[in-house]
C-alpha cells in the first residue's frame, strides 16, 4: 500500500455563479521515504493539490467534485473533523513558502513548537524536546533561541523553526510548498541540505512543490509536472531532466538559462576571458554573439480560461489542429514514464 495515493482528484473554486475547475483529474502516489517534486507555474493547481492532502483548502470557496485521496489507505475527503485533526501534523505536516507569515508573531518560537507537541505527543511537550528539535534542524544555541520571537530571526532561521514544528509530531509525509522561494540561494542550499538529511535520518516521504527545475535535480526521486490543473508528465527525476518528453516540459527546460559549467574550478578556462587587450576596457556586447533563449509564446492560462482540448496546445511548438479537439490522456509510454501528449515522439 502506498503512503499516499491521490486518484483522479477534481476540485472547483466557486466564483459567483461560476464553478472554475482548478484541479482536473490529478492522480499521484507517494511511497514511504520517497521524495516527489510537483513542478508547475502559478495557477497550475500544484499548491491546491498539495493542500488537499490534509484538506486544508477551505470549502467553500473550494468544492471537491470527485476523486479520492488515500492517506495510509483512508480517504481524506471522507474524514470527520476529529480524524482530520489527527492526520494534520500527525501523518502529514506542512512547510510553507513564507516562514514569516506562517509563524505567529506574538509567541516565542519555542512555545509554538511546544504547541504542536502538546497536540500530538503530550508526553513529550517539554523544553528538552523543543531543544532537541531545534538542534535537529541546525539552529545554534537552541536553549536561548527558543525564547526568541519570530521577528528576531532571519528568514532562513524562521524556516528552520517551521521545519522543526512540522517534525515535532514525527509525520510520515512532509509537504513542503516552495519552502525556499523566499530565501537567498546560499540559505536555500542550507535548507535543501537539511531536508535531504532529515529525510534520510527520519525516513519520511517528502512532497516538494517548486517551480525551480534545479531543485528537482537536487532533491527528487520522481517528478510530476503540472500545467493548467493537470499532470502533463510524470517520471523519475533523472530521466525527466535528461530527456523530457512532453512539449511543455521540453519548452520549460529550454527556456531557462543554465549556468556555465563550473565543475572545473581551479583549471584554466577553455577560452581566454578577454579576446584582446586594447578592446578590453570598451569591449562591446558584440564580442560574443547574443544567444537568444527559446521563449514559450503567450501566457500561462488562468483558472476558468483553460483552452479546450490539450491545454498547452495554443503555446505548443508542435501543436496540430486535432490537439484542440480532445484532452489527451496521461499514458505510460515507457516503464514509469507518463506523458499527456500523443505526439511526444
Amino acid at each position, binding site marked *: 500500500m502506498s503512503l499516499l495515493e491521490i486518484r483522479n482528484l477534481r476540485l472547483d473554486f466557486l466564483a459567483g455563479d461560476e464553478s472554475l475547475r482548478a484541479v482536473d483529474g490529478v492522480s499521484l502516489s507517494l511511497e514511504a521515504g520517497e521524495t516527489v517534486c510537483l513542478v508547475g507555474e502559478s495557477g497550475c493547481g500544484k499548491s491546491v493539490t498539495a493542500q488537499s492532502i490534509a484538506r486544508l483548502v477551505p470549502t467553500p470557496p473550494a468544492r471537491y467534485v470527485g476523486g479520492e485521496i488515500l492517506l495510509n489507505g483512508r480517504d481524506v475527503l471522507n474524514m470527520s473533523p476529529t480524524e482530520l485533526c489527527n492526520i494534520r501534523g500527525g501523518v502529514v505536516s506542512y512547510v510553507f513558502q513564507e516562514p514569516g507569515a506562517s509563524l505567529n508573531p506574538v509567541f516565542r518560537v519555542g512555545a509554538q513548537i511546544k504547541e504542536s507537541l502538546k497536540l500530538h505527543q503530550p508526553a513529550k511537550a517539554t523544553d528538552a524536546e523543543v531543544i532537541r528539535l531545534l538542534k535537529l534542524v541546525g539552529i545554534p544555541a537552541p536553549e536561548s533561541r527558543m525564547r526568541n520571537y519570530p521577528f528576531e530571526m532571519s528568514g532562513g532561521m524562521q524556516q528552520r523553526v517551521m521545519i522543526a514544528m512540522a517534525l515535532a509530531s514525527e509525520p510520515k509525509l512532509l509537504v513542503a510548498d516552495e519552502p525556499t522561494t523566499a530565501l537567498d540561494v546560499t540559505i536555500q542550499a542550507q535548507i535543501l541540505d537539511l531536508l535531504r538529511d532529515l529525510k534520510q535520518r527520519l525516513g519520511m516521504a517528502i512532497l516538494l512543490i517548486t517551480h525551480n527545475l534545479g531543485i528537482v535535480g537536487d532533491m527528487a526521486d520522481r517528478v510530476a509536472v503540472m500545467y493548467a490543473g493537470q499532470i502533463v508528465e510524470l517520471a523519475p527525476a533523472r530521466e525527466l531532466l535528461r530527456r523530457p518528453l512532453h512539449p511543455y516540459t521540453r519548452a520549460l527546460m529550454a527556456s531557462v538559462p543554465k549556468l556555465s559549467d563550473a565543475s572545473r574550478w581551479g583549471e584554466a578556462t577553455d577560452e581566454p576571458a578577454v579576446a584582446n587587450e586594447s578592446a578590453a576596457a570598451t569591449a562591446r556586447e558584440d564580442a560574443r554573439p547574443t544567444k537568444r533563449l527559446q521563449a514559450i509564446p503567450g501566457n*500561462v492560462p488562468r483558472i476558468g480560461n483553460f483552452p479546450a482540448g490539450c491545454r498547452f496546445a495554443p503555446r505548443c511548438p508542435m501543436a496540430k489542429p486535432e490537439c484542440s479537439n480532445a484532452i489527451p490522456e496521461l499514458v505510460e509510454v515507457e516503464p514509469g514514464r507518463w506523458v499527456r501528449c500523443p505526439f511526444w515522439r
Partner: protein
Amino acid sequence: MNLLEVQNLKVHFPVKHGVLSRAREFVKAVDDVSFRIAPGETLGLVGESGCGKTTLGRAIVRLVEPTAGRVLFEGEDIAAMSAGECRMRRRRFQMIFQDPYSSLNPRMTLEDIIGEALDIHGLAESKSARAKRVAELLEAVGLDAAYAQRYPHEFSGGQRQRIGIARALAVEPKLIVCDEPVSALDVSVQAQIINLLQDLQQQHGIAYLFIAHDLAVVEHISRRVMVMYLGRIVELAEAKALIRSPKHPYTQALISAVPEVDAETKRQRIVLPGDVPSPIHPPPGCRFHPRCPIAQQPLCATASPEWRETGKNHWAACHLAKSDA
C-alpha cells in the same frame, strides 16, 4: 568613453532613535562602490537580499540620495545636480522595476502611463503625435497598439512588465537600470522578457545595469558581472570567467549553491554557515570573514582587503584570492 562611471558611491540610511535624539547609527547599504559601464554594455549585478544591490541601482538614477561619492553620467555628476537638472537628465537614464503589479498606476490607461514620460520631457508636439508614439512603443515591446486605452489590471504579469519597458523606452534612454525585471514572472514568460531586453539593446544601443539574484539569468544577459556583499563589490569579471573561475570565496559559495538541473555536472557545494551580518555593524576587516571557509586570522579580521586585478579584467577584493599566472 564610459557612459556611466560610479566613484566611491556611498548610501547610508540613518537609523532613527526617537523624537529628540539624533540618529547615531547608519545602515551602510552601499559603502564605497566604484564601477563603470560602457555604452551599449550589459553589466550584471548579483547579490543576496539586503546586500544593497537595489539601493545601488536606485542611487544611480537618484531615486535615493547618495551620501557620498560621484555618479558620472556622460561625464556629468548626477549626484551633485539640483533636482531640476537631474530631472531633465533622466531622459538619458531610466529604470525598470521588479514588481509589474505595483509599478504601474492602476488608474491610468497605457497611453497615459507611457505618454506621461513624453509629456514631462516635451517629446510629443500634439495629441496625435503622442498617440502615434505610444502605439509605436507598444508594438516595439510586442503588445498590440490597440491596447493603448486599456488599464494595467487587464494584463498578465509578463505583459505588464512589457508596459514598464515601453515606459522606460519612451524617452530613448542610453542606460536602463533593470531591478530584478523577471523575478516576479512565471518561468515560461521570463525568457520572453529577457529576449525582448536583448533585442531592444541591439536595436537602440542601450546599456543595462541588470540587477538580479538569479545567477544563470545574469550570466546569460551580461557581458560583465559584479558580485555584491554587505554593501561592497567583492568581485567583477567577464560573465563566463566569473562563473567558471570565481576568485572570491563568496562568489564560489554563491555559484555552488545554485541547484543544478543536470545531475551529471553536480558541483561540490560550499554551504556557508550563518546569515548575512547586519549592515549597521558590518564585521571589521573583510566583511565576509565570519562566514568565509578559507579566512585566515588575524589578517582577514583586521585588514580590509584591497580591490585588485587577479587576472585579465578580473577583479576581486580578497586577501587570499589567487592571481592568474
